[in-house]
């Protein structure tokens, strides 16, 4: 039984009618907070590539222009940060991860996304396929700003947003699950916001 906290009534900032869209323990924000462990990355698009790798070998790589030539999807989705803000109806321009993985033959069960600056995060393959994950380069009709992960970030909105790696440069295909950056520091290996999987053991 949780003790009642003196004077606390709660403001319940979830907009009326949106309750079912906001996972437990989250509040809705209208701005777009920035959280990163280190300096913002600035890789120019002419030096940018996106690679699918396995065991250190590059199986397939796209330049910026090659990636942008792939079919664009407009994604409208809610996002949920482990620091407890959720943002509803965000608009992204993106390439589906399905489109990228279709061009690679593999039998991997997991991926480790890797980014400029050394950030990594792990995801089951089934969570980055089936129309659930994107490589996003546009936000609200404009280029994705660097502080939000531009030129391109992963977008996996059904998991906590640390899984949507900023400044992403590729996916390493793996047979077994390996912790990424925050997962090594005690954050949850999977990160389902609806189950409040914030930290290891949740």
């Amino acid at each position: 039984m949780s003790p009642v906290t003196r004077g606390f009534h709660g403001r319940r900032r979830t907009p009326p009618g949106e309750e079912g869209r906001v996972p437990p323990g989250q509040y809705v924000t209208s701005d777009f907070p920035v959280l990163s462990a280190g300096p913002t990355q600035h890789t120019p698009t002419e030096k940018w590539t996106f690679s699918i790798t396995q065991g250190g070998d590059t199986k397939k790589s796209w330049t910026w222009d090659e990636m942008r030539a792939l079919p664009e999807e407009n994604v409208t989705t809610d996002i949920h940060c482990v620091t407890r803000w959720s943002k509803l109806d965000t608009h992204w321009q993106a390439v589906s991860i399905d489109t990228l993985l279709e061009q690679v033959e593999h039998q991997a069960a997991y991926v480790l996304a890797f980014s400029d600056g050394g950030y990594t995060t792990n995801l089951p393959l089934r969570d980055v396929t089936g129309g659930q994950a994107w490589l996003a380069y546009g936000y609200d009709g404009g280029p994705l700003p660097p502080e939000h992960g531009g030129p391109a970030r992963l977008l996996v909105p059904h998991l906590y947003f640390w899984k949507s790696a900023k400044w992403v440069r590729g996916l390493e295909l793996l047979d077994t699950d390996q912790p990424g950056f925050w997962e090594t520091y005690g954050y949850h290996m999977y990160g389902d916001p609806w189950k409040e999987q914030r930290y290891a053991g949740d």
Partner: protein
Amino acid sequence: MEGTAVRGRLTWQSATVTKIIPETARASTIVFEIPDWAGHRAGQHLDVRLTADDGYRAERSYSIASAPGEPVAITVERLEDGEVSPDLTEELRAGDEIELRGPIGGYFVWDPATNVGPLLLAAGGSGVVPLRAIIRNRELTGSTAKARLLYSSRSLPDVIYRAEFERPDPGLDVIYTLTRSQPPGWRGHAGRVDDALLAEVAWPTGQDPLAFVCGPTSFVETIAEGLVGLGYPEDRVKTERFGATGGRQ
């Protein structure tokens, strides 16, 4: 990137508030007694859970303000539109019980045993809280690492832990910049941190400095990019950011 994994499950614990220390007109330090605290490192944070009488709960993360070995404390700044901070700063009393769990985070952490190079601590507003834990940890462990705190605050009365920072410490320099108002005769810096001030305060890269930057996004972006511009390797610039509507503080 280096790191020590945080293992095991983080369970909610009942903590007793032992003391509430007003720091500024808007910020208070809350000191807890926690029976089963596993210990923490300077720079980590914890989660607090508040429960209303109808069972509604809200959780927030707060940086730990105290050094390892000291009673666990957080410093909370009241946000006018906040759901949790007004309760923690206005309503809570010594003797109250509150639920928390931690410690959380392992990257924005200073380890006095392995990091002996000079420390550059850059704080924007209440971003000073985890840096204060580092400063106290440094002092209590007798670390020889020199430290500089660059603290950007709206005004002098908004400076948290000011009395503590004014105690003479030959290994610690505190450099304030006051962004909104300066007292008469103020001879320190005024306005936001710019590249010139950062270049003046930052340790030369040859000394292998380690930087911790904590504050609002715009502050952290300016400082972190400025330090990279001065030649600081990216993995020597650790950041923690909070937005206006939430985040850590």
